[in-house]
């Protein structure tokens, strides 16, 4: 069956394709013969870690995926959650780490393009994007280059395609020096009766290819690039990175949404990882059908492409759809209007097989389910890292107290991890589609919902993406719990009710038992936190092999929580909105300097057990915030996280449209550096016009609430009940440290 010119297929070639000896045996058994070269390519991509989730499957099964609002959970292109009035949000986060390290602009751009396709494939109009980005230290010229490139890629694609980037997070750490992370999130809006699934149903229905032509780019992106560690040779894999074309994507979005408003199409799938192969197998497998493809009809960018290349190309901006028989002309007319190719390349069959012809000859004939569904599931060995207890050991009494409290605050605000990210998000269109109520720079973004016909609704969607990798490295379970809790808390700060979450699990090489242990612990944490907070996991992505020359990144289970606000006009910003408000601290402050930003930055120590998150407290806190914001008992709410209370208070003063000061008085009892920079979770700074009402509401919810000061003036002063302030600085100075943190390191 192999076309002439194809190499001889044997165990050696299978190994070069990343397949194990056992998998080779399985292939022989499934086919009852030696695979053709294109067939070997198909097995290698479909069974690669990136597509098959073979190492992670057994853990992902434990995540809670159902809830009263969940319409579609993991397994579809993206999760779908109902928000009432016949509407639903569709969202997912996905990694594009390795491509972005090799070619930052195109790697990041195609990451954004891919996640947009996952969303509009389901019939939703992409509404809002976020990005979680991790780089090495910013004093490294390579990472300055990577930051500039990634931001250019994210902006270049998102801006051009007309989808607002409304939030995100960016951190810098040594552990990402050899392997940056680019996780792209998108959320879209769909009418519930217009949701489309990737299903090739209806025997005899035409299979239509739409969008960009197929080229030789991105071949084996999923299998070779995403499913192996980096090494000195990785630069040579640059040709496996795809090239993005946002203009085509924009036309594709409009054409697909127009098409899906008719009933001419029965199923649709984007050609993402592993391209034509993966999309057709998934569609056939979901419908329990087969597909027949004629490769000669596939629109091709260059002459002489082989079946192997056509099947495995990861050229961007391509869709595969199944139309109702006899409706092909209607489909073609819509794509033509948007100046896009749409060609019938095959049809749906009833025999559960994938048959591919090229130059009139069969080149692939494989049963669908054994490839799509019965991919191997591994139970990889798990071992707690030998140095874990060493990492967690911290004798705080032996850590010298901070001798320069104002200096420490300055240093924290000037740290690129805590400093303003305006340098990045000013390069992103935050406004297009006219729904951005709260854009980047706050706790969570807030987007007003408009229907597809353009009418505005009262609904607002809050979104936040979070993870503290230092905590995850010190305790992956606690770190993952904290990531869910923080993202949910951020969403709650706007007044929204957290609904569901999506995650992007970035880890090292799963063949190492210590990495698998991190993964097992983190997924256990995600699972516990998602259950306790009532935010099921509706979509996600696993990215393993984030290592270079044997050095893994810190475990980074990035979590994005989506929440619903019934009336978007009743929301709270993060920054103090006016002078003369009372400031109330919700939640308790303990001596939590372990694993803190202060300890890392001022003492060079990344040690200790991260503070324990009380999930029951978090759930009550979220409920309190929802009610307090709706009743206008809260005028602003800001979560206390990295950098502790002093940094959070500074942000309340400087992150708004106008800076404003505050006078704060804190009870003594803890060492002052713990009071100011400790990172006890479950805390929120709320400004209020009616502190009495807020504290009594807090009492009802069992949330500790302390009146700690008032807004106003042009200085931030934090003082003990008597004596000199610990910190008293002009807010203009705080603003300067904070806004210059990133640009000054880039020489701008």
């Amino acid at each position: 069956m192999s076309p002439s010119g194809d190499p001889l297929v044997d165990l050696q070639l299978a190994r070069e394709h990343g397949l194990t000896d056992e998998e080779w045996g399985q292939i022989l058994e499934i086919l009852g013969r030696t695979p053709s070269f294109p067939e070997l390519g198909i097995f290698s991509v479909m069974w690669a870690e990136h597509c098959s989730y073979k190492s992670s499957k057994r853990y992902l099964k434990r995540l809670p995926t159902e809830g009263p609002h969940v319409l579609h959970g993991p397994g579809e292109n993206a999760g779908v959650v109902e928000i009432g009035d016949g509407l639903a949000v569709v969202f997912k986060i996905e990694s594009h780490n390795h491509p972005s390290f090799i070619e930052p602009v195109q790697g990041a751009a195609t990451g954004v393009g891919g996640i947009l396709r996952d969303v509009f494939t389901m019939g939703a109009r992409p509404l809002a994007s976020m990005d979680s980005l991790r780089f090495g230290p910013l004093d490294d010229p390579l990472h300055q280059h990577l930051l500039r490139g990634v931001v250019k890629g994210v902006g270049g694609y998102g801006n051009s395609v007309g989808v607002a980037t409304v939030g995100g997070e960016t951190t810098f750490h040594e552990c990402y020096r050899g392997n940056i992370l680019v996780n792209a999130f998108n959320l879209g809006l769909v009418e519930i009766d217009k949701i489309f699934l990737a299903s090739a149903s209806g025997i005899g229905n035409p299979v239509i290819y739409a969008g960009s032509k197929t080229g030789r780019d991105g071949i084996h992106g999923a299998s070779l690039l995403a499913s192996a560690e980096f090494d000195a040779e990785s630069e040579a894999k640059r040709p496996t990175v795809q090239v993005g074309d946002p203009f085509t994507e924009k036309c594709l979005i409009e054409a697909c949404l127009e098409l899906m408003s008719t009933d001419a199409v029965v199923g649709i799938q984007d050609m993402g990882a592993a391209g034509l192969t993966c999309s057709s197998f998934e569609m056939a497998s979901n419908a329990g059908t087969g597909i027949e493809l004629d490769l000669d009809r596939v629109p091709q960018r260059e002459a002489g492409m082989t079946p192997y290349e056509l099947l495995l190309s990861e050229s961007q901006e391509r869709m595969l759809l199944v139309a109702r028989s006899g409706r092909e002309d209607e489909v073609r007319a819509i794509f033509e209007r948007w100046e896009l190719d749409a060609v019938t390349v095959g049809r749906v069959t009833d025999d559960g097989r994938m048959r591919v012809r090229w130059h009139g000859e069969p080149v692939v004939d494989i049963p669908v389910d054994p490839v799509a569904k019965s991919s191997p599931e591994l139970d990889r060995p798990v071992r707690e890292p030998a140095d874990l207890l060493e990492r967690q050991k911290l004798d705080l009494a032996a850590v010298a107290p901070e001798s320069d409290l104002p200096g420490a605050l300055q240093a924290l605000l000037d740290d690129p991890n805590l400093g303003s990210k305006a340098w990045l998000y000013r390069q992103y269109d935050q406004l297009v589609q006219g729904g951005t109520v709260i854009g980047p720079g706050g706790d969570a973004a807030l987007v007003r919902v408009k229907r597809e016909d353009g009418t505005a609704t009262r609904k607002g969607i809050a979104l936040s993406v979070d993870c503290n990798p230092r905590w995850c490295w010190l305790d992956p379970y606690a770190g993952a719990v904290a990531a869910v809790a923080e993202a949910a808390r951020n969403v709650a700060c706007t007044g929204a009710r957290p609904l569901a979450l999506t995650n992007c699990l970035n880890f090292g090489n799963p063949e190492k038992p210590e990495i698998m242990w991190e993964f097992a612990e983190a997924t256990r944490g995600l699972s516990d936190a998602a259950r306790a907070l009532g935010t099921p996991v509706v979509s996600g992505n696993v990215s393993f092999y984030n290592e270079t020359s044997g050095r893994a990144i810190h475990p980074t289970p990035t979590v994005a929580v989506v929440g619903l606000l019934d009336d978007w006009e009743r929301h709270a910003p993060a920054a103090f909105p006016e002078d003369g408000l009372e400031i109330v601290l919700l939640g308790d402050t303990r001596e939590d300097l372990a694993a803190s930003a202060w300890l890392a930055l001022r003492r060079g120590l990344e040690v200790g057990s991260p503070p324990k998150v009380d999930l029951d407290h978090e759930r009550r806190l979220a409920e309190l915030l929802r009610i307090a914001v709706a009743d206008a008992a809260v005028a602003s709410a800001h979560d206390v996280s990295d950098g502790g209370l002093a940094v959070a208070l500074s942000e309340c003063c400087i992150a708004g449209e106008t800076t404003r000061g505050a006078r704060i008085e804190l009870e003594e009892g803890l060492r002052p550096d713990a009071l100011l920079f400790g990172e006890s979770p479950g805390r929120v700074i709320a400004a209020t016009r009616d502190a009495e009402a807020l504290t009594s509401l807090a009492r009802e919810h069992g949330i500790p609430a302390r009146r700690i000061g008032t807004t106003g003036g042009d200085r931030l002063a934090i003082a003990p009940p008597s004596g000199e302030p610990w910190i008293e600085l002009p807010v203009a100075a705080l603003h300067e440290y904070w806004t210059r943190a990133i640009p000054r390191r880039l020489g701008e």
Partner: protein
Amino acid sequence: MFSVIQLPGSNDDRDMRFAMKSILGCEAELVWHRSSELPAGTRGVLLPGGFSYGDYLRAGAMAATSPVMGAVKRFAEAGGPVLGVCNGFQVLCESGLLPGVLIRNHHLHFVCDFVHVRVERAAAPFTSRAREGDVLRVPIKHGEGAYFAHADTLDALEREGRIWLRYCDAEGRVGDASNPNGTLHAIAGLGNERGNVLGLMPHPEHAVEASIGGLDGLAILGSLADAIREGGS
């Protein structure tokens, strides 16, 4: 009725329609770029922002050759009001309805932010709701927004009072510190000789709701709505 021109790659077309229709209560329709005529009853034309044809050649260059631009030119020649925002401004320059060109921002970054602009000319059909010297807070979002023209063109523009809006600070002072992209003469909005065609880099359609971007965009779009109503639509 307003015709909002929809080019492949237009992004703010629906937002412009929303502002005119849902906020200002005017009729507004999306008009596909391949139409060679504007719909009957068109009293105003809006060229929205976006990345027409991906801006792959030069921003606005491909769009300027669209069939619909012939109709827009005839509409403008007949005195009908035409407002181009961002990519729409670029299209107006490329199609010769306005002089000069918009080039890469001097700092080479795309920039999205709220800025201030000073109303230099308060008149129908674009700024009758404002007074000369008013400062408006409106957003910009572009990578190629620096207006460039030869010195004698700029002199003529100044002489003829064709600079309708200039970037300024919150107090209305014009200077380098408040110039977001290196545009010459702090130009944010530029009109034709007759005063019925205006190109704007800022996006008034993203400042029409109190809690989403503020209301200052209404000083411009509301004026346009008034002009249409007075003209009897």
